[in-house]
């Protein structure tokens, strides 16, 4: 009886936390179907905002910028990060520790400080603020996530397999891509996904490194906060959320099915 009560309390506690985490998301989804333009009032059910979303060029352009920057920065960061991990593996302990320490700086430092520091750099370099500067900043804060997800795999590698491939006549490049790379691949992929997500959700660093007239979804929303958010934005974020939920469920279902069979 006592155990039953404890289980009951546990379940209620978990439910309350989930309510807390998902209540705002449910709110946004409901608002995307709200006929009334203000947040405060429920004016009836409508699909209007979903239709208007695809005609709103400003939002679509911001979405395009966001996806472009997330894809490019994640790709480039993954490439630089992978090469850096391979290089660090062959380094002396001391220089590797220093380089890993520097890698941690963007993760431990406050985003506002990172954003400001990059803004000052770009100004002193005389760069024109725009998509280019946003991309450079996103690559910079994405690389640590890539390195952190590849490094543990790197440590598990058996160096003899690489040497065996060389002994059997493979070139360095072939040996790397046939032997080392497949072992690193899960780390590389999760690093890429992490970098993509971080780039997609970033506001603060983009805020300081974007130019006038160039917007990602986050900065667009921030400028709309004071004027009032356009309901199309709720529709768009609902679509994104549902798509990701669907994809993640799909990915999560597949391996368990394999295990069963």
């Amino acid at each position, binding site marked *: 009886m006592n155990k039953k009560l404890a289980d009951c309390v546990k379940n209620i506690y978990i439910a309350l*936390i989930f309510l807390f985490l998902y209540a705002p998301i449910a709110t946004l989804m409901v608002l995307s179907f709200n006929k009334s333009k203000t947040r405060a009032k429920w004016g009836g059910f409508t699909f209007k905002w979903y239709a208007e979303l695809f005609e709103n060029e400003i939002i679509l352009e911001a979405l395009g910028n966001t996806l472009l920057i997330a894809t490019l920065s994640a790709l480039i960061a993954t490439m630089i990060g992978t090469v850096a991990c391979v290089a660090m593996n062959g380094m002396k302990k001391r220089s590797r520790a220093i380089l890993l320490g520097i890698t941690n700086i963007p993760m431990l430092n406050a985003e506002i*400080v990172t954003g400001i520091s990059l803004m000052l750099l770009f100004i*002193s370099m005389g760069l024109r603020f725009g998509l280019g500067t946003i991309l450079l900043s996103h*690559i910079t804060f994405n690389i640590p996530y890539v390195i952190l997800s590849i490094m543990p795999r790197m440590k598990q590698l058996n160096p003899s397999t690489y040497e065996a491939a060389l002994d059997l006549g493979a070139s360095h490049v072939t040996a790397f891509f046939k032997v080392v790379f497949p072992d690193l691949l899960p780390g590389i992929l999760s690093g890429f996904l992490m970098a993509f997500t971080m780039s997609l959700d970033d*506001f603060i660093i983009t805020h300081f490194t974007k130019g006038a007239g160039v917007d990602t979804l986050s900065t667009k929303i*921030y400028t709309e906060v004071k004027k009032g958010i356009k309901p199309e934005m709720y529709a768009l974020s609902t679509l994104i959320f549902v798509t990701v939920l669907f994809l993640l469920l799909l990915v999560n279902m597949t391996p368990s099915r394999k295990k069963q069979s």
Partner: protein
Amino acid sequence: MTSEKSKWLSTPYVAWSIMFILIPLCMIFYYGLTDKSGAFTLENVAAIASAEHAKALWLSLLLSLISTLVCFLLAYPLAMILANLQVNQHSFIILIFILPMWMNFLLRTLAWQTLLEKNGVINSVLSFLHLPNINIINTPCAIVLGMVYNFLPFMVLPLYNALSKIDENVINASRDLGAGSIYTFFRITLPLSVPGIISGITMVFVPALTTFVISTILGGSKILLIGNVIEQEFTQASNWHLGSGLSIVLMIFIILNMITSAVFDKEGTGLI
């Protein structure tokens, strides 16, 4: 791999990190320690002592400490419950906490406005149940709520990781040797989860201390945190020297936090 080769391979990343991590940090120190004519000065850093800035810093410290504590108190029992569930649900649990991040965080924070407003969703429910209404929108309370909401996953995940790594046999052994569950918790479970606690605290405290978005959205425009002050110096007042000086002060607190975690987490198991 020969060290010659690894030197050549590491060049792109070394160059990148010098260019985009180290030099920018030096720029903040350069701007923060000089005035507009380029002469050395400590004025920008000392400006933190002025009434307005000191008040913003004090409020930021207070609110971020409160939200870190609340996050910890909410997350620890949760992480314990989750860690005791079956092992094969590991990735699913992590997924549930990461999933909200796919909805833009500005919009999620904004949704709290709708929920908390005077005639908002929560108050409507409370009125329906004949309970007293809550009026916390545009107060520091709402900012703390926003911080706890946004950063709770960063506390839950490291705690969950640390707690699920604890060997069940150690806890059973303690029970077998006659310790009660409270004694076992304080002598076994809590000490073994210290690395998770430390990295959770770091991951909540730093973003909470430096935020300017949550205070803008949930605090009305009257409550200024240190992040708001710095942001305004850069985007509105265009006094980069003062903004950089205040950022240096902020970095001192971040470094203090890092040193504290390094002392407590000697094994270096922290950070995810």
